[in-house]
């Protein structure tokens, strides 16, 4: 059997110097390739902390994160940045696009930032992705001029621009109306099914969580339930 895409082993994250607050109290989690998992839990349960640690934006106080076969605990900031750029895609709740840039420039951003200079392939790939999210006619619009749903679709295109193994989505539909939420969700599911991209989606929305093939619940920094997938990971993670 192939190595899992992600292994989180006994991860603890504490904050504060004098009064220590424990955000994660020993989390174990394995994500196989091609999974589409939801991470749920009440506010302050440690969802975002876990997502930041998996996303290599934060380091655990103890424990290990093995991503795509690489143990990240020994990596320096530069190596983490490079691994993040080439392995991970991010979708944030408030899309977090750069308003001064056009949609196509935003989608090119991860590859451009990592490689330094733009290439024809980069631009081509960005346009294909915008086409895939149904925004080919908005490619040269500044993202500030797009609607909330459109902006989130650009954000998904950006997250996928480098063909990442794992996309981390933090409340991707949290700021959208129902129709736009469904659109965005279906889009992520489409990429998951078509390209086998693994998704870990943090959500408060039980309707969205209920449509994923795996639901992981975290409470007080510990995983309290992890529903067995209805369809195996190799089955492209249908929800």
């Amino acid at each position: 059997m192939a190595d899992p895409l992600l292994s989180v082993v006994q991860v603890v994250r504490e904050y504060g110097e004098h009064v220590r607050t424990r955000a994660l109290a020993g989390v174990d989690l394995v994500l196989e390739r091609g999974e589409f998992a939801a991470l749920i839990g009440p506010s302050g349960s440690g969802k975002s902390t876990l997502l930041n640690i998996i996303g290599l934006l934060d380091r655990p106080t103890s424990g290990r994160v093995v991503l795509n076969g690489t143990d990240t605990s020994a990596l320096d900031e530069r190596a983490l940045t490079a691994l993040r750029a080439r392995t991970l895609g991010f979708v944030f709740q408030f899309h977090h696009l750069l308003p001064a840039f056009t949609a196509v420039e935003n989608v090119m951003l991860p590859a451009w930032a990592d490689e330094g200079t733009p290439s024809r392939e980069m631009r081509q790939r960005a346009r294909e992705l915008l086409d895939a999210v149904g925004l080919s006619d908005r490619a040269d619009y500044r993202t500030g001029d797009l609607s909330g749903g459109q902006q989130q679709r650009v954000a998904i295109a950006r997250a996928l621009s480098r063909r990442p193994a794992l996309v981390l989505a933090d409340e991707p539909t949290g700021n959208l109306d129902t129709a736009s939420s469904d659109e965005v969700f279906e889009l992520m599911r489409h990429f998951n099914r078509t390209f086998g991209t693994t998704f870990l989606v943090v959500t408060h929305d039980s309707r969205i969580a209920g449509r994923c093939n795996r639901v992981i619940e975290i409470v007080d920094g510990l995983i309290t339930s992890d529903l067995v997938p209805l369809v195996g990971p190799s089955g492209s993670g249908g929800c």
Partner: protein
Amino acid sequence: MPFQWFVALRYLRDEKGQTALILAAVSVGVSVVVFLSALINGLQASLIETTLGSQPHVTLRVPREEARPLVESETGRAVARLIQPASQRLRSIDQWPVVMTDAERAVGVTAASATVTGSGVATRADARAPIIIRGVVPDRFLEIIDLRPKMIQGEFDLAGGSVVIGAVLASDLGIGVGDKLRVASTEGIDDVVTVSGVFEIGNQAVDKTWVVTSLRHAQSLFALPGGATTIELKLAEVFSADRIGDELHMRTGLAADSWMTLNAELLQGLSAQSSSKNLIQFFVVVIVALGIASVLIVSVVQKSREIGILRAVGTPPIRVLAIFLIQGGVLGLAGSVIGSGLGVVFARAFETFTSGPDGLPRFPVQIDVSLLAGATVLATGVGLLAAALPARRAARLDPATAIRSG
């Protein structure tokens, strides 16, 4: 276009108001630096040119004669003695052609001229005036002090016992070109000479006293056949006069008078002027730096979430650093180009508005490429330096925190 350049320029373009304001501030700052430098440099160059228009950069002469005691004191025997300062007489430099050739070869020396210079009296009918007789070799002398453009009557011609004299002296004696004049040296030798030209340098002391004649004629007036009392030098770099003078003094044993020593007060004035100019410019540069730094710090705070996103999607910290350094450098460079243009316009306008009734500038300004290039390099460097702190701050932002709270 490289990523960091693209983002930096887009940010500058996107924040039009902020960019325009800081650009205006940098431009005004640079224009003050350029204007002030052009004005002060122009004034100083004009003052130095006037001063050096009538004197060599370095003059080599025989050292003053020192009094030598006739009776020396010995152990156990005190001597009461009165030492009078030695009287000075005009003496020729020993082997002056060799000394002149040697001096001419020294690094930084562009011309050398041997002269016999001494005092005398000029008489015309019942008018008498104290004079300085300058015996020179015309070709060499004119390389040191070019009197030709200063001739207001006649021409510079020292052939056949002719002399050229200063305009005030000509006026005092009531003579002009073609008139005869009796000159007597301090050696008691006199001669009648013909005035071939009258010059006006603008320096009263020179115009009132100088009688320029041929070297041979002066040698006979001062009873120094074949001699020369001074060797005058012109240098490529006027401010190296002290150094080159010292070197030649060490080498030849002759006294070396540098124009800088002879005009110490002028130089002190110029130096004070330069110091105040530098001080003003320093504060202007500090203000420009603070302006750029504060705008970029605000920009980093405003954009911290975007910086967090850039970092999260895989932008290395070094590129984030470069984005803000480039913004500082570009603001400095663009501001310096605009500011240099403004400074040149201000300087030219000032020169025009303050020109005298004859149309010549009373305050000549000096604008050269090195000044503008210097201002550009300075402003760009200051821009980069001012951006260093905000850039470092941006590069060190924690992406997770920046995205959450930015």
